[in-house]
């Protein structure tokens, strides 16, 4: 993963927007696949996991960039993991306080946010080299991009697999749910569909931007 960030100190909207589209964590960087596929069987679970990851990413990015001058490089990864694990534990407690059912539905995947490579990746590639403001913008963009991607997966899987969205039935009784979509394999099918669409759109944009150039393969 290569970051081509400018070196000015003020946060720019580009830091925010790149995570939503150009460097979307799921559809472009294909990071954090474990939670993206495992808990996106309903839109509600996907949204909750996305927001939990967004919170951990935002807080850990801000803390790590604030501490970047005090942490020697030999112990930086250990320090990052400590900070990330702290915010994951906090999310775990807060989710239990908000809804035990939601906490149960997300199961072990909340604790596994600690090892989500998206979070450690942004800490190492961005927050450790940039100001807290820019790191916050980066985390917000990446976190919202991750949440939007999970929600896209979750919505498709729930609509096709259960005939509902956020638990609300969408079809008449005649609809036969595609049970495979809420099973683990359905996650791969939904991801493949979205990747196809995302790449087609990006290719079209690139072609429109430079009509003479060959389309990217």
């Amino acid at each position, binding site marked *: 993963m290569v970051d081509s960030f400018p070196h000015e100190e003020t946060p720019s909207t580009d830091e925010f927007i790149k995570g939503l589209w150009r460097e979307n964590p799921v559809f472009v960087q294909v990071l954090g696949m474990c939670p993206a596929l*495992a808990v996106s*069987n309903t839109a509600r679970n996907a949204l909750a996991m996305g927001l939990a990851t967004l919170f951990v990413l935002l807080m850990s990015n801000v803390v790590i960039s604030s*501490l970047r001058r*005090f*942490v*020697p490089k*030999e*112990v930086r990864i*250990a*320090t990052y993991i*400590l*900070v990330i*694990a*702290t915010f994951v*534990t*906090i999310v775990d*407690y*807060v989710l*239990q*306080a908000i*809804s*035990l*059912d939601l906490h*149960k539905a997300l*199961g*072990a995947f909340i604790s596994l946010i600690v090892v989500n490579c998206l979070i450690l990746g942004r800490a190492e590639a961005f927050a450790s080299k940039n100001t807290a403001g820019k790191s916050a913008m980066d985390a917000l963009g990446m976190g919202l991009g991750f949440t939007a991607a999970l929600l896209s997966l979750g919505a498709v899987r729930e609509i096709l697999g259960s005939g509902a969205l956020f638990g609300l039935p969408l079809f008449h009784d005649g609809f036969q749910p595609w049970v495979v979509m*809420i*099973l*683990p394999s359905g996650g791969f099918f939904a991801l493949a569909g979205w990747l196809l669409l995302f790449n087609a759109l990006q290719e079209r944009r690139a072609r429109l931007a430079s009509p003479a150039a060959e389309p990217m393969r």
Partner: protein
Amino acid sequence: MNGIPAPAPAPRVWPMYRSLVGVGLLCGLLIVSVFELTRPVIQRNQAEALERAILQVLPEAVSSRTFRLVDQARFEALDGKPGGAPLAHAGYDADRRLVGLALEAQGMGYQDVIRLIYGYSFSEQAVIGIRVLESRETPGLGDRIETDPGFLENFERLDVSLADDLTRILHPVEAVKHGAKEHPWQVDGITGATISSVAIADILRRSTEEWIPRIHRSLDDFRVAE
């Protein structure tokens, strides 16, 4: 001394200690603070979830009271006192009559320990409902023990009647292959989730064999609310 590279300067140790210990202390403080802040809410949520689960596995009950086993012989109402295990939750109908008991039980599943609560009806001498409280069974396969309607049908009336001397279950709960159920004390398994469904039957067999005879011997202890 030509050809021998100069040793690399040793990393300074103090900044490393300062960084790890300092960040560790701050993180610890943050976790403890959030834990203390959320603990009462989490405990209230857990109590409400347990109450909902009790009333779900004992559909005729409208209220419940928790008892604990004292001296391996009698049951004592907790009434808000700290409990510990093992606990039995008595369910009462609108006329404050004892209708059944909800009992917690646990055992090893395919991935990890499965914890469940089941309802026992005195009038039917049967398990009349179960709800899985905690499980990490494989999503899409083992977790069908919580969602498969055909499997849950087993527990609408699972016979655990006692022998005449009230000391043992006449026909202990047993798991059978999917489609092979013949008797009301058998649990029809799930194809594709065999280990998880057999685990549920084992948990129920062990718990009912231990508790149901004991409860019948101490039935008057639960009638204090009537």
